[in-house]
């Protein structure tokens, strides 16, 4: 990624005073020791990458620092001051700690301005000073080079803009310690560039920044120091330049990962999925594509190119205006997901918590849910033995780490949740499996496991299609790449000929709308 090369790194951070000193922090949740004697330090003017696999305890640690969770034991010093007793969210805020959460945490009914000032409204005598707040919100948004009307309702903004609003909110709060949990996962490259410029500015002002990301390539552009955690324990803290990428990964995983992108070569079989002239709204305009048995098709493109919408239309979530879907030579009429599933066409959606899992149900119930037709007898009574056998098989095949299949799906780490989302489809004989951003927000080791799973499906002669915004992943795993831009397919590349530059060129082939309107 070349976009952030312009940013030069300063070394002033190494001399700043410590603003966070956490020592011997432990935290236990029912059944899990989330943090075990962890140390974490941050200096002013320092960008600290907090690294570790999912479930390593990074989120728990920063949640303790921001007062969301209370620690079981250990000491916290902020700006040299020992914190006595529990640290409360508002106390952390008053001290200048802001956190940008991985899962967007916005009040979607409120406007941008209302969200930016939420919790610290300017309200003399409790009366809201809307004029002044709107002005200041505009100012912060301008400083982020964001052209957003502060009166826009947040729920109407695309995800990437919502993320920027969240960042604006932290800035408005005059954060001295800024925690960013996967801030770039929803951003476009232009926005990432802006974010990095901003991080640099904040560092110059003496802010301490804790940066959590699974996109290790990003780190070189901004990070001064690295703290690595594994299994709830502190592993090491060291200046970033002393570490190679391989050593970082080795420390996170506790072992060397040989291949980031394991590739399996299988002969291409016959055509399994054929989509012709699919139309569904503005973002799916005349899509035609084929997926063959024994191949993985990557769907690339920028945010908002219509990739997710295409998968939704194929799977029958959104209504199709036109177009046909053929599986194994049979024309299908897919009006809803139920039709698609019956015909062996399944989708593992992008948003695990919202679309992929019933988070309040157990792992067992989640896996059994789409397969109840196979598990029930004629009276509709679930065969427990069959159900448990199916769940055990999925859990073993996918190496899902869990205490028991009876725990809530929400209690699993991101990577394991993703395995359950995928696993519930594997229990039935599917012909086409579509993944939408299968590795978003999950750690390196789990990513490799997901890739291996996709390879396994491919070897079994199943047509696999996946949407991804991560170029290295698309290039590393897909056998063929289809690129979308603005609701259309703008190119198709074989794995051998594909490069980042070619994909990006195709992904930005916007139609000249003006010309087409006049012509």
């Amino acid at each position: 990624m070349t976009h952030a090369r312009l940013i030069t790194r300063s070394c002033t951070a190494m001399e700043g005073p410590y603003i966070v000193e956490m020592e011997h922090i432990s935290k236990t949740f029912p059944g899990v020791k989330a943090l075990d004697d962890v140390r974490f330090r941050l200096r002013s003017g320092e960008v600290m990458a907090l690294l570790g696999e999912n479930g390593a305890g990074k989120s728990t640690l920063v949640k303790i620092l921001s007062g969301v969770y209370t620690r079981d034991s250990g000491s916290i010093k902020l700006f040299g001051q020992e914190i006595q007793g529990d640290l409360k969210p508002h106390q952390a805020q008053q001290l200048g700690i802001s956190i940008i959460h991985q899962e967007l945490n916005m009040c979607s009914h409120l406007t941008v301005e209302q969200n930016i000032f939420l919790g610290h409204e300017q309200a003399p005598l409790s009366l809201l000073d809307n004029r002044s707040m709107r002005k200041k919100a505009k100012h912060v948004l301008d400083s982020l080079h964001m052209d957003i009307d502060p009166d826009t309702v947040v729920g109407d903004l695309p995800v990437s803009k919502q993320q920027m609003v969240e960042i604006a909110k932290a800035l408005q709060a005059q954060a001295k310690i800024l925690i960013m949990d996967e801030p770039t996962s929803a951003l476009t490259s232009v926005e990432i560039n802006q974010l990095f410029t901003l991080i640099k500015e904040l560092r110059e002002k003496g802010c301490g920044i804790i940066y959590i990301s699974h996109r290790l390539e990003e780190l070189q552009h901004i990070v001064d120091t690295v703290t690595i955690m594994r299994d709830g324990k502190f592993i090491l803290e060291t200046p970033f330049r002393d570490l190679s990428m391989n050593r970082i990964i080795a420390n996170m995983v506790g072992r060397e990962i040989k291949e980031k992108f394991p590739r399996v070569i299988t002969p291409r079989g016959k055509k399994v999925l054929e989509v012709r002239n699919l139309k569904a709204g503005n973002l799916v305009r005349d899509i035609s594509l084929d997926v063959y048995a024994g191949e993985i098709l990557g769907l690339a493109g920028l945010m908002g190119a219509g990739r997710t919408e295409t998968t939704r239309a194929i799977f029958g979530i959104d209504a199709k205006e036109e177009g046909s879907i053929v599986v194994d030579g049979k024309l299908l009429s897919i009006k809803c997901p139920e039709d698609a599933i019956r015909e062996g066409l399944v989708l593992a959606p992008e948003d695990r918590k919202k679309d992929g899992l019933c988070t309040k149900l157990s792992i067992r119930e989640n896996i059994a849910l789409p397969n109840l037709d196979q598990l029930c007898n004629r009276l509709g009574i679930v065969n427990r033995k069959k159900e448990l056998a199916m769940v055990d098989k999925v859990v073993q095949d996918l190496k899902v780490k869990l205490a028991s299949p009876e725990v809530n799906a929400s209690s699993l780490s991101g990577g394991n949740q993703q395995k359950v989302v995928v696993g519930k489809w594997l229990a039935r004989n599917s012909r086409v499996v579509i993944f939408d951003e299968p590795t978003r927000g999950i750690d390196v080791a789990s990513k490799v496991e997901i890739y291996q799973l996709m390879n396994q499906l491919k070897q079994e002669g199943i047509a696999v299609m996946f949407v991804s915004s991560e170029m290295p992943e698309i290039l590393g795993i897909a056998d063929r790449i289809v690129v979308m831009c603005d609701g259309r397919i703008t190119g198709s590349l074989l794995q051998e000929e594909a490069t980042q530059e070619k994909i990006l060129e195709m992904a930005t082939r916007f139609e000249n709308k003006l010309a087409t309107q006049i012509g």
Partner: protein
Amino acid sequence: MMSALKRPLKRLLAIRGIGQVLTVTVGLILLCIVFGIMNPIFFSSRNVANLLRQIAPILLIGIGQSYVLITGNIDLSIGSVVGMSTMISATLMTKGVSPLFAVLITIICCLALGLSNGLLVSFAKLPPFIATLGTMTIARGIAQIANNNYNTDSIGESAQSFRDFFYYGKTLGLYNTIWIAILLWIVFNFLLTRTKSGRHIYAIGSNAEAARLSGVNIVGTTTKAYLVSAFVSCVVGLITTATSGMGTMDAGNSYELYAVAASVIGGVSTLGGQGLLFGTVIGASIWGVLQNGLQFAGAPVAIRNIVIGIIVVVSVLLDVIVRSGKMTKKKPV
């Protein structure tokens, strides 16, 4: 000049839920026209005054329910608090307590119930449906034991000032009941739209976790909403006492549902985060106009109930249809 005019208009139209408020406002106007044509007496000054006096209590409890619904909760105890307020105030006055003192004691009792609603929901984290179902039953029980399981006698001559203040008196040509509703609406609308607490009420209904992480006090804010609900229910109870001149144990029966109806017809979302008290005015008015107009048209109570039930369902259904159409177009990436 144009932009100066455009901005507030744009901001108005950007408010979530304004669409339904405008739709039902048109509906209300149409209803009035139809009833006016069917029976000219509908628009007579006497009937309009009566109609407004019918609407006032529904509007008041609607305000309370709207507050609670916007936080994403529900208050089922409203009707019982009305009954409790009626019975406590009437019992005290028949026992010779001065009206002013009786009103104060009644308000304190009702606020105590509102406080327990708020704490049960936000602090003890009980589901609001269950918590207020419990307090609803308790409050009805209190209404029943207030006068030893009997309705009270007449509150008597000495309470005439009380009856005038809440129901029979007029100020500037309008019945006091109507004034009470208008003034409380202005106060509570101001609190909801212009103050920090009001903003927080919307925020926790929209996304309680986001609000908490932003430093919003969930317990305090939720409790305030329940206190408002209990307070307006208390006022409606006092109006009921003034109207009938006595306390009846089943006063306010199923008012909590009327309050939900008024809120929901007016565009308040039962899922929280969205709603305008202006909509509640329209919702309560549609309720009142239907009751009044259908009565004039000679429709029996049963028919009135069926019509109002249909209106509740249809108005929400319309909103769902309109919004789902919008959502699929704007589906984020």
